[in-house]
């Protein structure tokens, strides 16, 4: 290996490797028969062992090589999470090419931008929908091949660039037979400082920027993930992961590729985003990362189901939720539940918590993580109360997803915890902006040196754009620097904190606080259709559409109550004086949300400007 191994080898004697494909190769020789991937097909989970995984990656790598992909070339992948995603990703890295993930939800215009900007040479497209998007784009001089995974609907297409995944893999397997050492050789000579993957940031402002992550970034993340997990005690048996977070997002990649390869765990691909709840109950993952949206949804689900439960069940739940909340507070304050608390927890575990955990798919979860956006402390406390070890972490695409994290026994509610390990250094700028330095800091934005220079300063500190403050040893995030609201009265307000408090209510899905240079704060609120329609049905309120439901006076009164409850948590200047309900569900396709469901504030402000002005 050319790259130096600058970390000590691990206690079990296995070597630290210089790339993820190298790590996979090591696992394939160490545990060839253990299950690496599972994908649900016609109702059952089809398994792939580590031996087969590595063979598939080599085959795909050879196929790419044959198609003319050379070190430094880009390979785009536009697909939901599935086996071919990770195979293509690692195959591209194995031949020193660069993988680029596109969201399956990216509309054609964005696909055009991303393919053009990344100069992708081949595209792995999931199905007809993705193929259509790529074919609709004219003027893609770099794109030479489009490999489609699902042949349905594409067979009849006539375009010389099209090729099926089956044919692609068959060609790769044949090439691998003829030339079995090429991939190994390329993996051995991977330069740790070369770019492994481009991760396009979701871009709440402006077009997406492609963060270049090097092999060193990824292996560092992989090893750090392993250390973090080892600190919490290793699980019995092989860890199970459920892959449902988009792999083109760094949070999903951290777990399903970096973390999975670090631990030699099994990655189970969810059938689709709609089936995650059912898949969770089947897989009962060992580690589960999720954005706040998922946790809020689970929280709402439990609340709604419990309000429908029969008397005895409800009574038990109410009692043990109170007990759990006390325990959670104690756990956060002292790191243990205490003797009595532990006994009560055990009783609650038998009567309530265990079944709840099983229903949510968290029965075997050793560590649940909330990341990718800020979460309301109430939600975390709720999960701790029912015995699910949920902690908040913080990281960015530009830091390879790892930054800070709360850990069991070392957590403070409302903060994002401490640096994940000694490699990570954090300091605050005078204006409160968080600066971070770690081996995970990205190489820069692809073809955008200006933005890179703005982000990484001369000393290697990365400017995160988040404003924070220290709470003892713990770091607390106030908000995105550009999102902070300064009211007409000159008061600084963090909108995300208020928005998250609002979103604790099961009836509120989206909230956007407005008030920059205004006299008081207002909010645009989007209702959660499932729960609110359920509520309306029980109240005997008839409605037709989302818009109709949002305009019902009873619903407005209901949301008013939720807003009042949230307001109690804040000082007077930070309370929401007025709100309006958004008449439509926000959507990525229409440019109101990013691919990761974050609000595009500018777009919303423009689109609903009349609603906003009404409130002032």
């Amino acid at each position, binding site marked *: 290996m050319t790259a130096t191994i600058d970390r000590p080898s691990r206690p079990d004697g296995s070597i630290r490797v210089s790339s993820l494909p190298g790590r996979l190769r090591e696992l394939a020789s160490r545990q060839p028969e253990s299950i690496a991937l599972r994908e649900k097909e016609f109702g059952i989970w089809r398994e792939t062992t580590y031996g087969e995984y590595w063979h598939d990656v080599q085959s795909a790598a050879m196929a790419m090589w044959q198609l003319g992909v050379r070190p430094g070339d880009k390979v785009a992948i536009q697909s939901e999470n599935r086996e071919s995603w990770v195979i293509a990703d690692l195959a591209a890295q194995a031949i020193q090419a660069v993988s680029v993930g596109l969201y399956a939800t990216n509309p054609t215009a964005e696909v055009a931008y991303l393919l053009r900007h990344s100069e992708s040479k081949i595209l792995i497209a999931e199905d007809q929908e993705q193929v259509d998007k790529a074919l609709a784009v004219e003027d893609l001089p770099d794109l030479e091949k489009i490999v489609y995974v699902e042949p349905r609907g594409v067979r009849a297409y006539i375009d010389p660039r099209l090729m099926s995944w089956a044919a692609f893999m068959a060609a790769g397997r044949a090439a691998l037979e003829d030339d079995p050492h090429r991939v190994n050789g390329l993996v051995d000579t991977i330069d740790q400082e070369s770019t492994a993957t481009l991760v396009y940031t979701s871009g709440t402002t402006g077009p997406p920027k492609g963060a270049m992550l090097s092999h060193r970034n990824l292996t560092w993340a992989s090893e750090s993930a392993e250390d973090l997990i080892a600190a919490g005690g290793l699980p019995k048996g092989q860890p199970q992961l459920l892959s449902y977070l988009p792999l083109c997002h760094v949070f999903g990649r951290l777990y399903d590729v970096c973390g999975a390869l670090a631990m030699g765990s099994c990655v189970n691909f969810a059938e689709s985003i709609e089936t995650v709840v059912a898949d969770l109950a089947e897989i009962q993952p060992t580690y589960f990362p999720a954005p706040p949206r998922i946790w809020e949804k689970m929280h709402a689900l439990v609340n709604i189901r419990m309000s429908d439960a029969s008397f005895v069940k409800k009574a038990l739940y109410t009692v043990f939720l109170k007990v759990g909340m006390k325990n959670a507070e104690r756990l956060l304050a002292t790191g243990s539940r205490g003797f009595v608390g532990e006994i009560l927890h055990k009783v609650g575990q038998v009567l*309530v918590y265990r079944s709840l955990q099983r229903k949510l798919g968290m029965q075997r979860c050793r560590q649940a993580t909330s990341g990718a956006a800020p979460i309301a402390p109430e939600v975390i406390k709720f999960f701790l109360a029912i015995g699910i070890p949920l902690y908040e972490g913080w990281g960015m695409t530009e830091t390879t997803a790892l930054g800070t994290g709360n850990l069991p026994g070392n957590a403070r509610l409302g903060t994002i915890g401490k640096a994940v390990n000694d490699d990570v250094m954090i300091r605050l700028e005078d204006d409160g902006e968080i600066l971070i330095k770690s081996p995970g800091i990205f190489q820069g934005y692809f073809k955008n040196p200006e933005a890179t220079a703005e982000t990484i300063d001369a000393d290697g500190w990365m400017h995160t754009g988040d404003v924070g403050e220290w709470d003892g040893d713990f770091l607390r995030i106030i908000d995105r620097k550009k999102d902070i609201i300064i009211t007409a009265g000159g008061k600084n307000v963090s909108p995300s904190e208020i928005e998250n408090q609002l979103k604790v209510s099961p009836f509120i899905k989206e909230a956007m606080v407005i008030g920059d240079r205004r006299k008081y704060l207002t909010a645009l609120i989007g209702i959660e259709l499932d729960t609110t329609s359920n509520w309306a049905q029980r109240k005997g309120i008839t409605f037709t559409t989302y818009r109709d439901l949002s305009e019902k006076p009873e619903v407005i009164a209901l949301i008013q109550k939720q807003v009042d409850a949230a307001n109690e948590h804040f000082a007077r200047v930070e309370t929401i004086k007025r709100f309006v309900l958004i008449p439509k569900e926000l959507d990525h396709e229409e440019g109101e949300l990013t691919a990761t469901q974050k609000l595009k504030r500018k777009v919303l402000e423009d689109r609903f400007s009349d609603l906003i002005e009404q409130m002032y």
Partner: protein
Amino acid sequence: MRGRPALFTRYESDSAMLPTTTQRVWLLVGLLVVAGAAVWLPRDWLILIATAFIASVGVIGLNLVTGYAGQVSLGHAFFLGVGAYAGAAFGGEATDKLVGFGLDVVLWIPLAGLVAAVIGAAIAPIAVRLRGLYLAFLTLGLVFLGEHVFREWDSVTGGPGIGRKPGVLRLAGWRFDLDGEIAGYAVTREQQIYWLALIVLIIMAFAAKNIVRSRIGRAFAAVRDRDIAAEVMGIDLTRYKVLAFAVSSFYAGVAGSLLFTVTGFVNTNSFNLLLSFAYIAMVVIGGAASITGSIMGATFLTLLPRLIDGAGGVLPFLKVSSQGLLSTSQLERIVFGALIIGFLIFEPRGLNGIWMRIRNYWKAWPFSY
């Protein structure tokens, strides 16, 4: 997969009858308790429960054709009769007036089933052309035809008022119907019949469970839900309806052949419409389209008279004799009728439905759905 019971990597485990080790262990424990109960149960209870086991086999058969395949059959009594006489003929002793082959029990039970199945299959093609009420009437006709044949065919049935003995429970020289000794322990006739009936029930119940969770069972359900739709999906209606009748008749035959070994006497007028109704009632009360329900229904209705008799000693208005407000036999009929009405109105899924509801209460815990 271990520790993750809902994660299936093979279809076999997805459709397994007992997917988890816990379930397997509990079933085994349950069966051992039921088998072991024979040691301390009094004779009359042994007889009663053995009858319930045998009736369960018959009810499972009726449930297959009526509950699963949706073909209402009022002719079950006829097939029970066929089984009873086939069993008696194959397993009974020949006399100067009666036919008898004196075969072993392992032979004459299946033979009784087969004879019934063949007759069932022979009648089925006519039944295939009919649906609902018409089919019910057709099968009703079978009962009357059967009663006539049973009365007249003296050489097999012994004739009205005389009757004959059922097949002899003989296996390689061992007699189940006589008190004996196993490994130094005295076992009574009743205990042996109890165990024999239990074994037959276990075999037949597992077989039925396998039929209903296989391709055949799914075809039955499709035919029941809508026969035209089933045919459109490529299910051969004739084939599956004939199959349903044949399998159901086989079960009836097996049950019929054993039903009278307990009392030791087969009477030609036992196989009347009332018997058919009793079996329909067991299906309804136990739960249509459920094997467990079949067993629950059969057991419940077989034990009901005994329970009411027991109540006669406790409740003051009940008298065993015909004096007093109500006799126990009157009450029995009233309860029987009330149960059918009550279940149809309040719990159409029968005892099994109640059981499922209880199970779901705990399964959904702490939610309610």
